[in-house]
């Protein structure tokens, strides 16, 4: 078992999401036209939690969608491929303010794929990006608008976000790869 170091506890995650939820409403001056679109797998529960927070303090419902970027990746032949799971975005994205939600921002390639996937669903007025962890090492010009925590990391380290809905508990851990 490689050694694990806890970067964010359940309380840290809760506070970070509450702050991001407030930042989203402040930056967009309300919730008019907002849509959260989570990247499968763990971006989706994060997007739902952000919408839930906003409902609590603004009393308004922000729609939440799920985006599968598998078919938009740029490395189809380069690795084992994940299952195609299907996108489920319940609203028309035309002229909406879309906020992409993902757990970890790393090279930026997933977000590049997500931008293509979103554009195929409609022409949003704008697209913003919220991530729980930004670990650096960008390979593309991608910049998040909302960040839970910046974690300077080495490429041989692995950062795992665990969420109640998927993994049974909330935490972000750093593991050093054994190679």
């Amino acid at each position, binding site marked *: 078992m490689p050694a694990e170091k806890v970067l964010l506890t359940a309380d840290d995650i809760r506070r970070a999401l509450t702050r991001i939820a407030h930042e989203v409403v402040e930056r967009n001056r309300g919730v008019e036209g907002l849509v959260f679109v989570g990247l499968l*797998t763990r971006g989706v529960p994060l997007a739902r939690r952000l919408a839930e927070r906003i409902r609590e303090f603004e009393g308004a419902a922000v729609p939440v969608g799920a985006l*599968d970027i*598998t*078919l*938009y990746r740029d*490395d*189809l*032949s*380069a*690795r*084992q*491929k*994940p*299952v*195609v*799971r*299907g*996108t*489920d975005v319940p609203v028309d994205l035309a002229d909406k303010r879309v906020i992409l939600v993902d757990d*970890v921002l*790393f*090279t930026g390639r*997933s977000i590049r794929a997500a931008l*293509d*996937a979103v554009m*195929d*669903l*409609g022409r949003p007025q704008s697209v913003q990006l919220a991530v729980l962890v930004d670990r650096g090492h960008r390979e593309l010009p991608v910049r998040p608008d909302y960040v839970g925590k910046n974690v300077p990391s080495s*490429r041989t380290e*692995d950062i795992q976000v665990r969420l109640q809905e998927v993994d049974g508990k909330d935490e972000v851990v750093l593991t050093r*790869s054994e190679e």
Partner: protein
Amino acid sequence: MRAVQTREQPQAVLPRRHILDLNDFTREEIETVFRTTDGMKEILTRQIKKVPTLRGKTVLTLFYEASTRTRVSFEQAGKILGADVINLTTSTSSVVKGESLVDTGRTLQAVRADVIVIRHASAGAPYLLAQHLQCSVVNAGDGAHAHPTQALLDLYTIREKLGRIEGLKVAIVGDILYSRVARSNLWGLSTMGARVVLCGPPPLLPAGFPPPADAVVAGGPALPPVTVETDVDRALDGADVVMALRIQHERMKGGLLPSMTEYARRYQVTEERMARAKPGALVLHPGPMNEGVEISPDVAHGTQSVIQEQVTNGVAVRMALLYLLCAREA
């Protein structure tokens, strides 16, 4: 490096280069096709139904026999996934100058086709091609032998509508002798746990059918367990799914049936006969239909018919297969 990011994601792997028949498909492989198809169906519902997944891949359809839905469906599947699709019609190709199948295949491989989809009147033609080529070969129908992508879309449609395949009674009615659809479905349905009843007039049932339970071919069973029934009412009794097959005039070399009228009277799938099947039973037909021969128009276009859904699902299933074949190339 990328593996670090995606380590925990489930993998969709079809451990084969070619799709020739379903006789050696495992249940897990069929489930993988189903899951991938679920994801592909959503794309068909979009306003802009196009994704860039297979950009730079070439799918080539090589049809030595007529086809509407299979060829169009492969072309549509490839194009929606962003592949380039080339359709070769043999009547305007060097095939008319006598070029052999293998030479044609080598030529198509040399122009860098990634997947060749072939339909041929001779059973085994796709196997011959697969032996000689490095690219993927998909059997889109070879003689009376196999039509695996049709069977997969039939299986998918049944699962989608009834929620399962395991334990269902499926009656396949009509021209069993010449039906590659029936042969591939027989393997797929029994692998997924359905009970298959084949029904047709004796001249349209293969000789020596069913084979003895212990018959083997090349180490495997010659056929999955199957019941044969010449009485259509008994075949349909309590069925969950009724699959009507086309009477294939073009393959019949005379004298097998006294007349189409006689066949229709004895074996046509009608509303009256459907009353023997379970309430809500599905009606499938691989098309093209001879309405009024193997199926009555009111059944073909009635509420139990899923014939149009089969065509739509055919596109999604072929998208899944092209994706799984192309993505396995490292």
